[in-house]
């Protein structure tokens, strides 16, 4: 039964967004990807959900400022395994333009394992969709292996 469900599940990944102190550029692109019929990520079975407990794929944007760091980690730990993390934009990986800012500590990479990276400032909606598709592949592999990424 569980095998059967884990075969079906990757057809409809639920997406959750975390804004880790982003400038909102990437968030606008993520909203565009979901809401505008021109891009329409729901064609691929994806759905943006409001609760971290329902999520499968996490989209993280922003350089993880000190103010939101603990909150982001708390929300991230509420997401059930196996979860796939997608870094949207260059900020989560390297800090981008904010890399040496007074409110930016270490990159997200030091706290949360990033599985898929979508570089761009901001990435275009098609690139985000490409990233989600790649994340679904990673997620499918994880479901088949039954392994968990460490939190």
């Amino acid at each position, binding site marked *: 039964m569980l095998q059967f469900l884990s075969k079906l599940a990757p057809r409809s990944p639920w997406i959750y967004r975390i804004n880790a102190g982003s400038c909102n550029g990437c968030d606008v692109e993520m909203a565009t990807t979901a809401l505008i*019929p*021109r*891009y*329409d990520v729901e*064609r*691929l079975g994806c759905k943006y959900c409001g609760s971290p407990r329902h999520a499968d794929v996490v989209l993280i944007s922003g350089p993880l400022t000190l103010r939101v760091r603990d909150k982001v980690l708390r929300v991230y730990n509420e997401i059930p395994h196996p979860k796939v*993390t997608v*870094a949207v934009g*260059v900020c989560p*990986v*390297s*800090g*981008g*333009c904010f*890399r040496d800012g007074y409110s930016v500590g270490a990159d997200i*990479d030091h706290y949360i*394992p*990033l*599985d*898929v*990276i*979508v*570089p*761009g*400032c901001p*990435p*275009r909606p*098609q*690139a985000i*969709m*490409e*990233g989600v*598709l*790649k994340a679904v592949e*990673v997620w499918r592999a994880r479901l088949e292996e039954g392994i968990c990424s460490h939190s």
Partner: protein
Amino acid sequence: MLPFLKIMLRNLILGPSTDPFPFAPAKTHKNFRGCAVFDPEKCILCGICRHVCAAGAIQLRVSEDGSGMQYMLWHNSCVFCGMCAHYCPTGALTMSDNWHLVHTGAEMFSNCISSFIPFGECAQCGAKIQPRTQAIIDKIGERSPERFLLCPKCKRESIVRNVAKVNHLPAEENP
């Protein structure tokens, strides 16, 4: 009367507005700024790209044996502003319209341009100078092509020799 008929007819003619992206190639505008492309044949190691890079994505390091410089551009830090391509005097850096940069976390640090650029040599004394590539010779080296290939010291001596010749001064035997 019945204004929706007009909209319906227009939608029937124009077809769906959804971009068929994952199943068909997406349209990319010709001026779209994607990832930077580097041509090591044209680079003269002036470092203006590193100077203007807002995101600090470009690094130039002297190699361990001192024979050249290692040029690194990390795409995961680049914000595609295009300033490096704008200021590059030889056109070694250009912005392509490639936006297919999605990669897994394991490739995080390998997603970069990395190339070794050897130093040039002074045509007279063999000292190490910035590489004199054809791109910069065509641009600013045409006025005095021989002098352009010299190191600063040899260039100064050559200029003094030239001035002495023009002014008919006696050339010194041991300068």
